[in-house]
């Protein structure tokens, strides 16, 4: 599986990259990819997201520099921004012999193991996919699958500044407490540290080897295949 670390990136171009890689993966022209990044502030509405899930007007949010997207993934409203690790696996579930539910469970497991490495106890809540701590939700999942190839993925709060979840009704659940790993871990943690731990956890949970290439190499290669 090819790992690409994109650093801090705006939502639109990464969505476009995901859609491109997803379509190429379905045509079997690429291997599986794992995109790893943090986003500039953005609110996305999944398939069951509603405008009422925004607690500020779209104008106000845009003035604050927050972008808003309606996207195809499962779930309702969520926030991405600096201090949150986002992983977008573009992978063929059949290649790994995974069903959709098992896939979601494995994404949860990646976050639970990452928490464990930081001495933060995270767990699943049946019927509420994600990674939970007793103080609130830490990790979020929203997935889209076509032709058994996935995109979108998971988001894990590391040290959110600002905590943009205050501007929305997260996951369609009013009052849902949202917390970050840095406030839960006895020694604190940084995004770079969590990113490394999450990649190791991903590799172990999915049983895949991650081979990193640079974003520049990805773009060059996409340009070559037209």
């Amino acid at each position: 599986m090819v790992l690409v670390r994109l650093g801090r990136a705006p939502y639109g171009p990464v969505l476009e990259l995901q859609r491109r890689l997803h379509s190429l993966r379905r045509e079997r022209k690429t291997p599986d990819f794992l995109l790893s990044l943090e986003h500039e502030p953005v609110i996305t509405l999944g398939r069951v997201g509603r405008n009422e899930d925004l607690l500020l007007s779209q104008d106000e949010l845009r003035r604050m520099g927050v972008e808003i997207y309606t996207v195809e993934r499962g779930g309702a409203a969520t926030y991405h921004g600096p201090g949150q690790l986002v992983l977008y696996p573009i992978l063929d579930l059949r290649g790994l012999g995974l069903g959709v539910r098992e896939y979601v469970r494995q994404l949860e497991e990646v976050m639970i193991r990452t928490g464990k490495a930081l001495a933060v106890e995270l767990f699943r809540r049946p019927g509420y996919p994600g990674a939970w701590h007793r103080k609130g939700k830490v990790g979020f999942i929203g997935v889209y699958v076509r032709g058994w190839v996935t995109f979108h993925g998971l988001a894990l709060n590391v040290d959110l500044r600002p905590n943009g979840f205050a501007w929305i009704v997260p996951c369609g659940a009013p009052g849902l407490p949202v917390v970050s790993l840095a406030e839960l871990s006895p020694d604190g943690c940084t995004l770079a540290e969590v990113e490394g731990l999450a990649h190791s956890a991903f590799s172990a949970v999915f049983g895949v080897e991650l081979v990193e290439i640079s974003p520049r190499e990805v773009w060059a290669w996409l340009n070559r295949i037209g």
Partner: protein
Amino acid sequence: MDLIVPDLGEVEEVTLLRWLKGEGEEVEVGEAVAEVEADKAVFVIESPAAGILRSRRPEGSRVRPGEAIAQVLPG
């Protein structure tokens, strides 16, 4: 031909989220016709045949893998 919700692996029931093609509309083999959701995953159902889409189940229905959500009739 029935448009079937495939076996998604350990999923007992899904929500028929939305139709991407209308009742009576022509569809191609492999064309995306519907989206179902389970556990925050949206799964796209593609048409198994070319034809006309009929007898669509309403959006919001709870359906089980193996169940038909519409028919694709020869056009």
